């Protein structure tokens, strides 16, 4: 009976219920979009690192975080030296240059990269030939509407699109290593080195050998490196997520508080009727709280649906810059945040309704 009463009350004021639901959906969408952006960025980076086929990664000692935007500080001689170590099949030096974060243009020693994993998967065109040649992946091509043979201006330099590569392997934008080194004034320097060993059983042996060289670089197995790709490792993301969650609770609180307070005022007489029938304070508070929670559940569902719309929009407009995904594991968290906000927001109107004087309430016009 409580459920019917609640449902009929919500139906009786459809516009207010709809607006409240929509207002509560917004923080849910914000939270899910933020998590989807962060997680998408991390998973995309993780996949591109994993698909290099490397077993070990060596980064500059100044590299901070896991998504490396740092400059080049490893001399190419180191790459050559690593190539000569026992159990090392191939070492590939790459140079990253951030162009429009999180987008990075990557200078690659193509011959070594091909030896490591067979090279890029060409969807159109072919490998780099001339110094001004550029490879872009399908997402970047879609985002910038560039095709084979088009000119792309990056780093104040006009590039010629030589090939369109599949997504998910090392880079979205790749050029020849010496060309980027020259443009970056980083002659014979790289940002990081990927190492593939002869046999996966040799990985720990090679890591120990590299550490024994005491080069002062960060040395990680690829497995350990990939495990670092968590939101907590990206500076500020955790704090930003907490701020958005708090905003979600506050918005939920105020939306429900205003909505339910308005509703309670409009229904003063009905509350008087319920009290005349013997409804306790607890019963009236339960009705108001249940209404708020129902609005919050509606807001959560709508917020989740809107996050799909947001994801589709982002992936259509900027698939390369923001590889947003849907993170289902956050649905209950976003829902809980909304429920808490709604429950707190309904408390004052609910208590206010429960403490109405029945005679005054019945006389309310």
């Amino acid at each position, binding site marked *: 009976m409580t459920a019917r009463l609640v449902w009929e009350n919500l*139906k009786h004021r459809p516009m207010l219920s709809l607006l409240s639901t929509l207002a509560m959906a917004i923080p849910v969408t914000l939270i899910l979009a933020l998590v989807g952006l962060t997680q998408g960025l991390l998973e995309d980076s993780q996949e591109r690192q994993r698909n290099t086929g490397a077993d070990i990664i060596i980064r500059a000692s100044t590299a901070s975080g896991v998504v490396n935007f740092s400059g080049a500080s490893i001399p190419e001689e180191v790459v050559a030296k690593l190539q000569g170590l026992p159990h090392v099949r191939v070492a590939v030096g790459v140079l990253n240059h951030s162009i429009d974060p999180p987008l990075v243009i990557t200078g690659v020693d193509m011959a070594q990269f091909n030896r490591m994993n067979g090279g890029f998967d060409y969807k159109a065109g072919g490998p780099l030939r001339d110094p001004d040649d550029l490879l872009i992946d399908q997402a970047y091509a879609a985002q910038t509407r560039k095709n084979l043979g088009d000119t792309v201006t990056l780093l104040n330099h006009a590039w010629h699109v030589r090939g369109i590569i599949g997504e998910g392997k090392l880079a979205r934008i790749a050029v020849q290593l010496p060309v980027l080194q020259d443009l970056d004034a980083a002659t014979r320097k790289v940002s990081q080195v990927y190492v593939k060993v002869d046999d996966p059983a040799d990985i720990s042996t090679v890591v120990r050998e590299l550490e024994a060289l005491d080069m002062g670089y960060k040395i990680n197995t690829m497995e350990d490196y990939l495990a670092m790709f968590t939101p907590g490792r990206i500076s500020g993301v955790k704090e930003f997520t907490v701020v958005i969650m708090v905003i979600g609770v506050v918005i939920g609180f105020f939306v429900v508080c205003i909505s339910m307070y308005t509703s309670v005022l409009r229904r003063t007489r009905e509350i008087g009727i319920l009290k005349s*029938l013997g409804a306790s304070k607890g019963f009236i508070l339960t009705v108001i709280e249940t209404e708020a929670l129902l609005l919050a559940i509606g807001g959560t569902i709508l917020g989740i649906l809107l996050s799909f719309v947001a994801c589709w929009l982002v992936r259509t407009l900027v698939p390369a810059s923001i590889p947003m995904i849907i993170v289902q594991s956050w649905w209950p968290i976003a829902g809980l945040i909304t429920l808490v906000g709604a429950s707190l927001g309904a408390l004052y109107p609910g208590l206010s309704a429960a403490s109405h004087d029945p005679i005054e309430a019945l006389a309310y016009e």
Partner: protein
Amino acid sequence: MNDGLIIETRDLRKIYRVGKVDVPALRGVDLQVSPGEFVAIVGPSGSGKSTLFHIIGGLTPPTAGQVRVAGQDLLSLTDAGRTQLRKRTVGFVFQKFNLLPNLTARHNIAVARYIAGNRGAADERFLEILNLLGVSDRLDHKPAALSGGEQQRIAIARAIVNHPAILLADEPTGNLDSQNSKAVLELLRDLNQRVGQTILMITHNPEAATYGHRIVSMRDGRIVQ
């Protein structure tokens, strides 16, 4: 106090505080009602009859005096105690019907049962009364789709669904035309005669008052006759 009475008040007083001024609404009311009685209370506006109705119905506490309703001393009842009284001991019928506008007639009755803790189907006796009220075919309509007379009959059904000891009717015909007024008054009399329902009815209408076994007149917060 007499245990044989269902309502008994002695020197009942109620003072409302309006701003900084004390306004006496009841100035010492002595009333005795036996079980199964149909009592009409008449009097001009401001005579205190509604206040008496509200105190007996547990909608507001008395200020002083003695008042017993179905064996309960209302002066000592807490807010929760008065809620229990409204839930189980008294049923209200109001001038403005006071049906919940969002619910159908059936659910208006059901919500009263639910609040009183009665689950499951209504009992035979109530279904008989429902037939007597003549609204069985209007139960799935919301109040806005019902005439005033139909709404008041639904309100009566809601008031008695939990078989309260006392039915309190506050100007039950005040918003009805003469034909519906007569029908509602006859229903109340039928309820009283058939099932022995104790009824306390406030009215301005002298003709309506004649339906009661006796008429109690009030003026200036006191019973005058």
